[in-house]
């Protein structure tokens, strides 16, 4: 099956747009709910919204990386005649070698992957967060080598 890297670039980018619009909506609702908590209708409280806002970027980072990884597996399937590695780390390294992607670009993607793992598995490591915008830049740069 033919691989189209532009579709995956757009999918990764679209996740960031959803994050921005959802963040805007949550913050707008928070502003109103702080003045009038009754607008929330009783199913949840202002502090639930605050938690949603705090976790939003991490939530979307997990989703963005998932789109990226699916794109890598589609590339592997389209260009190789064997099953893609189950470990994401091996998948990234294999494609890096195949497309001669430079170490800094590959390491930037691994940094996002490791941060994603930290979020998913709720590890208590002290690590500086990677923003969604920075993640998108690293992931899209890597995907652009697959054009």
């Amino acid at each position, binding site marked *: 099956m033919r691989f189209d890297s*532009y*579709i995956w670039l*757009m999918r*990764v980018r679209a996740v960031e747009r959803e994050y921005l619009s959802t963040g805007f909506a949550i913050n707008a609702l928070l502003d109103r709910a702080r003045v009038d908590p009754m607008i929330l209708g009783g199913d949840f409280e202002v502090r639930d919204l605050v938690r949603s806002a705090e976790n939003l970027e991490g939530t979307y980072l997990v989703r963005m990386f998932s789109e990226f990884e699916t794109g890598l597996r589609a590339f592997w399937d389209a260009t190789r005649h064997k099953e893609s590695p189950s470990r994401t780390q091996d998948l990234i390294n294999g494609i890096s070698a195949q497309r001669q992607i430079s170490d800094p670009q590959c390491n930037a993607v691994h940094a996002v992957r490791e941060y994603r793992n930290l979020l998913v598995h709720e590890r208590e490591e002290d690590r500086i967060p990677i923003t969604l915008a920075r993640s*998108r*830049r690293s992931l899209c740069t890597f995907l*652009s080598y697959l054009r």
Partner: protein
Amino acid sequence: MSTVVQPEQLLEGWLQSLFELMADVEAWASELGWSTRRIEMQLSDSEVGKYQVSSLLLAKGECEIWINPRDRNTSDYAGVVEIYRMPVMDDVVTLLFKHDHWTFQVLPESCMHSDCAVDTGESLSRESFGKVLDVVMCHEV
């Protein structure tokens, strides 16, 4: 009596406006020394389903930008086209289509440096598009 415009007609109008936009931009970019390449993309929306559009990749030296149709018929505009800096996919500027006219929308985060090439509301023209390309060239990633 108001006339109901069918979704197919709306799509036809949007595709025609995109066709003209891409032809203009392709010609202007070529005149300014950029190489151009069309890339077919598939878009979809609930009203008309899936449809094919052309996006446009421009390159000069190490610098590359992607002009990519995003949405038809958003709430305020008949359509939106994004211009991205490649390969990082940073927003450079957005083109909005309304009343048969393309204008720029500049997002605050697009102005990574102090000199934004164009202002929000400014019409698309050969000159304004050239200014966008100049700024992209000056701020290669």
